């Protein structure tokens, strides 16, 4: 009758435990010894069969004999094996004495495999284990958006520049950076230069008068005014050139100018308007 069973299920008709793949057939039956679908390892097609199964870290030997075939409830007999590896092998031997070689051999092999993976489990639980935390998509998206908006709101470059200038003002850098010209004087100089560069004579006069007016009220001498005016007009070009060179040499002497292009552009527009001849001269000199 087991032969009949095999003829029906194993070979020809449908067996629900059988899984076919390209190269092999597997058996999903939990009492299967090897896991493959063979004539000799099918628990349904052999009336005398044995397996090793483990439960909660302990291994049991399951046996099935012909005598109990009509009693499905009592079909599988279960024997607890000892924890000691060699002793358990002996127990398998004495339980399966007079059983076919194939089943004995495969049982012992399976038992070995099972003990090995149990040992591995115990070792791994002692080490640290990776905890997989699932990501919540909505939250991830929310955080990402908030981060982007915070980045925009932060305006990091400006903040850093401001902080650095603050530190410069509060003298944390000591004497390393010498900007000897005080901010006020520099502004005044720039203002003077601007006023001179503009070609409108009226504006020139106006500005100069405005400056001079303040000056005059302090000094009260007209002659000196005229002298100054002359000096300024004639030496204005030289002054500007000098200023140019100074500025260029200043920034060059610092070492690396990070942004050369914008630096040139950002300097006061004074230079661009007048004296295109002077510019290439300064460039060649500095280079």
């Amino acid at each position, binding site marked *: 009758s087991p032969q009949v069973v095999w003829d029906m299920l194993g070979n020809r008709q449908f067996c629900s435990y059988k899984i076919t793949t390209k190269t092999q057939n597997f058996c999903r039956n939990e009492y299967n010894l090897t896991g493959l679908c063979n004539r000799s390892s099918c628990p349904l097609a052999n009336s005398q069969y044995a397996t090793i199964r483990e439960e909660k870290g302990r291994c049991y030997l399951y046996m099935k004999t012909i005598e109990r075939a009509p009693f499905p409830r009592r079909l599988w007999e279960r024997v607890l094996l000892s924890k000691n590896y060699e002793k358990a092998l002996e127990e398998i031997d004495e339980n399966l004495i007079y059983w076919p070689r194939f089943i004995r051999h495969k049982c012992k092999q399976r038992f070995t495999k099972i003990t090995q993976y149990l040992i591995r489990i115990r070792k791994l639980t002692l080490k640290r284990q990776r905890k997989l935390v699932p990501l919540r998509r909505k939250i991830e998206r929310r*955080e990402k958006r908030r981060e982007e908006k915070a980045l925009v*709101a*932060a305006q990091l470059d400006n903040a850093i520049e401001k902080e650095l200038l603050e530190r410069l003002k509060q003298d944390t850098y000591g004497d390393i950076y010498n900007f000897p010209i005080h901010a006020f004087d520099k502004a005044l100089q720039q203002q003077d230069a601007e006023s001179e560069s503009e070609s409108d004579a009226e504006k020139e006069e106006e500005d100069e008068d405005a400056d001079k007016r303040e000056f005059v009220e302090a000094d009260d001498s007209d002659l000196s005014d005229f002298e100054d005016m002359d000096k300024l007009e004639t030496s204005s070009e030289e002054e500007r050139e000098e200023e140019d060179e100074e500025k260029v040499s200043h*920034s060059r002497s610092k070492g690396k100018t*990070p942004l050369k292009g914008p630096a040139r552009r950002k300097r006061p527009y004074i230079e661009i308007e007048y004296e295109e001849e002077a510019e290439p001269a300064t460039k060649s000199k500095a280079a």
Partner: protein
Amino acid sequence: APPKPVPKTIENQREYDETTVDPNDEEVAFDEATDEFAPYFNRQTVPKILITTSDRPRGRTVRFCEQLSTVIPNSHVYYRRGLALKRIIPQCIARDFTDLIVINEDRNVPNGLVLSHLPDGPTAHFRMSSVRLRKEIKRRGKEPTEHTPEVILNNFTTRLGHSIGRMFASLFPHDPQFIGRQVATFHNQRDYIFFRFHRYIFKSEKKVGIQELGPRFTLKLRSLQKGTFDSKFGEYEWIHKRREMDTSRRKFHL
């Protein structure tokens, strides 16, 4: 026409946090003089940092660790070959390390940072995002030099923010070398801490140019523990509880 009103921003409308630090607060000053960073701020200890990763770091994380170690002076990168943190910590303390940084990575991308001050100092656990390595930063400068950088901490207002800020400050040596002209910035904005590393140059008294070098990343604080890293028995000073703390758009904790 009436004058244009000041536009409402989230920073303007931020809910008032009662733990905001007042610059003149004595209690806070006293606390800070006696907490775990006092030896650093009194210049008794020199920071020495150990940077490590989680198990089996992938290439990107390794490169990020290297770059981070160039940014932070006096830092060393060690591989973690399956060692438990609890066992590393006594060894670190024995070898005089002051801080431990663990970068956790997932799928070849660093996504977490654990920063712990060693002689039983606080441990902060951050989530790290948008990490850019040096080669991915556009318009960057050359390699950072060995000079110690300056540190800028922006916007750490509350008590919690203050302690985190001090933690960051204690990573860097106290005396920056101004010759190096390098600055590391931790900028807190709406609970996100942006880290940048720049080289600056003063073009004039009113203008400064900055050039970004070095990696950049953003951190978000997840938890702050009182002692050194201990996930089971540690005493948590602050944990980010999403249900309670993420409800209002205008409430921030750092």
